[in-house]
């Protein structure tokens, strides 16, 4: 992952943090679209399906990209602490209660699991059919960006319970997306690629 993409992940984390802290959904959606957050997991999946070096590079990208995203979330929390009413409260009114978004993206339900399954498969299929730009839509459906940004916010705010729940939600999405993408790439290799090595 290039420095530019890592920077985009950091900025997306800050956007997401301010959206979560102020109950502003469109800020969250903006963060989901600008963050190149699907690529690291699809890279790992491609490496697993093809037995290539993409797996290792993907793991490095996950650490760099999602580390930057979480740091961006923490940075947003610091801004909230300075200008708002607390680490995870921007102190400004919006069209949603701030805690509604925080609660949603720190809670794992059966429907969030299904969305992760479908999102992982859809994202990999879009890459297989050369529609990479549409993976932004998958990122909007998944909870990866807000969950990891919320983790960073909660950590600097000392809200360890919230941090754990948000990290759990994000980690579940990450794991399911990787598994589903691996299945799609493996299927693509068997049906279209049909080569022994990449």
């Amino acid at each position, binding site marked *: 992952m290039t420095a530019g993409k890592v920077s985009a992940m950091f900025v997306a984390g800050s956007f997401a943090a301010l959206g979560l802290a102020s109950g502003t959904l469109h800020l969250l959606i903006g963060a989901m679209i600008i963050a190149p957050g699907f690529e690291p997991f699809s890279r790992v999946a*491609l490496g697993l399906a093809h037995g290539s070096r993409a797996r290792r590079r993907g793991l490095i990208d996950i650490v760099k990209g999602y580390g930057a995203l979480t740091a961006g979330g923490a940075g947003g929390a610091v801004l909230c602490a300075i200008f708002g009413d607390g680490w995870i409260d921007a102190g400004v009114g919006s069209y949603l209660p701030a805690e509604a978004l925080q609660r949603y993206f720190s809670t794992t339900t059966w429907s969030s699991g299904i969305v992760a399954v479908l999102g992982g498969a859809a994202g990999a299929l879009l*890459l297989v059919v*050369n*529609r990479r730009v549409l993976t932004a839509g998958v990122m909007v459906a998944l909870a990866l960006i807000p969950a990891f940004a919320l983790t960073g916010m909660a950590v600097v705010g000392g809200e360890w319970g919230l941090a754990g729940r948000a990290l759990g939600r994000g980690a579940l999405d990450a794991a399911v997306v990787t598994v589903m993408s691996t299945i799609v*790439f493996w299927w693509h*290799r068997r049906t279209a690629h*049909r*080569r*022994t*090595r990449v």
Partner: protein
Amino acid sequence: MTFTVEVTDRSLGQVMRIADACGAGTDQAMSLSTSRPASLVTAGRADDVVQDSDTATAEEIELAIG
């Protein structure tokens, strides 16, 4: 020496398998790149292009998500 081969996506997998067998990726003297035309004006085979599959090669996927 440079060769240019124009094929549809449907046939690209076969080209890649031939290139693989010829040492692409291991032979230092050989490199291979793929690209898509932004437009096409042709008297024949236009239907083949319109009705082509849109499947990417593994290399294209890997480069796209880099």
